């Protein structure tokens, strides 16, 4: 697959908020499509949306593009979400990257494992669209502060 694919700007253009560039990492194309769709429904300014099917593709995109928020699944082939977070952890280049886990695995054991990897939010699948709206509002407000 082409890791450079991206979608045009979506979402509302709220005053005073810089649009978020988002990277969605999930091995399911349909789940990426669903997250994109829900993201577009939220009243939060969204800039570019990038997609990757695993952690390795995500790193390729992160090295090339400016990404504000990373949404990643955990269980993926090639490179898992946890491995991705470890790989970018501690690198000053991505110190302001907002990291969100979107996974069916909501176990305490998994949450504890990623707790030290600078994960801002943990969203369990299945989730309702309003959960994603709240996540984006949270990230957008945070992004405004770090910009």
């Amino acid at each position, binding site marked *: 697959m082409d890791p450079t694919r991206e979608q045009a700007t979506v979402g509302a253009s709220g005053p005073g908020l810089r649009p978020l560039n988002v990277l969605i990492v999930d091995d399911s194309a349909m789940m990426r499509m669903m997250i994109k769709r829900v993201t577009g429904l939220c009243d939060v300014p969204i800039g570019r949306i990038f997609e990757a099917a695993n952690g390795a593709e995500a790193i390729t995109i992160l090295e090339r593009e400016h990404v504000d928020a990373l949404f990643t699944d955990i*269980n993926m082939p090639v490179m898992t979400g946890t491995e991705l977070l470890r790989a970018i952890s501690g690198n000053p280049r991505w110190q302001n990257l907002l990291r969100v886990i979107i*996974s069916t695995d909501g176990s305490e054991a998994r949450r504890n494992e990623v707790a030290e990897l600078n994960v801002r939010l943990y969203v369990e699948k299945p989730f309702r669209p309003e959960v994603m709206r709240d996540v984006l509002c949270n990230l957008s407000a945070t992004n405004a502060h770090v910009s």
Partner: protein
Amino acid sequence: MSSAICQRRTPTFREHREVLQESLVAVAQESFFSFAEPCDTERFGEAVSSAEADASGSVLRWLRACVEFEGAFAGRVSVTMPHALAVELMMAIAGLAPEDEIAEGHVIDSTGEFANMVCGTWLTKAAVHRKFNLRPPAVTSVGAPVERAADGEELVLINDRPVSLRLDFIAS
């Protein structure tokens, strides 16, 4: 029983199946915007007949998605549904309209993700303190499931269409 299995004792196989069924209902309703409910063998049989009638004389196609997991315990969750329902669920999660083009690859991907979410949701409820790894889902075409609940199998209707759900533990 409650949606979370009591951690003070080892859950029974029956309890695991019930929580698995609850997980499927939650996934169908929350992420696939569909109506799901447990059913008995009689309603399941009626739904199979109805699905066969909808197939207009052609052989009814079924898809089975299997997700293997390993961790504190290991096993496999299998979800079997008519192909027509798999298409319906894919359109729901992707937000497609009836006139949109349907790619078979997307149907397979969506069916696998459905099973993946059911399995992950169940494991989180069943063993919240334990960590599991899920393998990528395997989706295949199969014959019709037996029209009654076999051991380890639960029957569910999603949008009035028949779905069977099976749990197998694998000795490690």
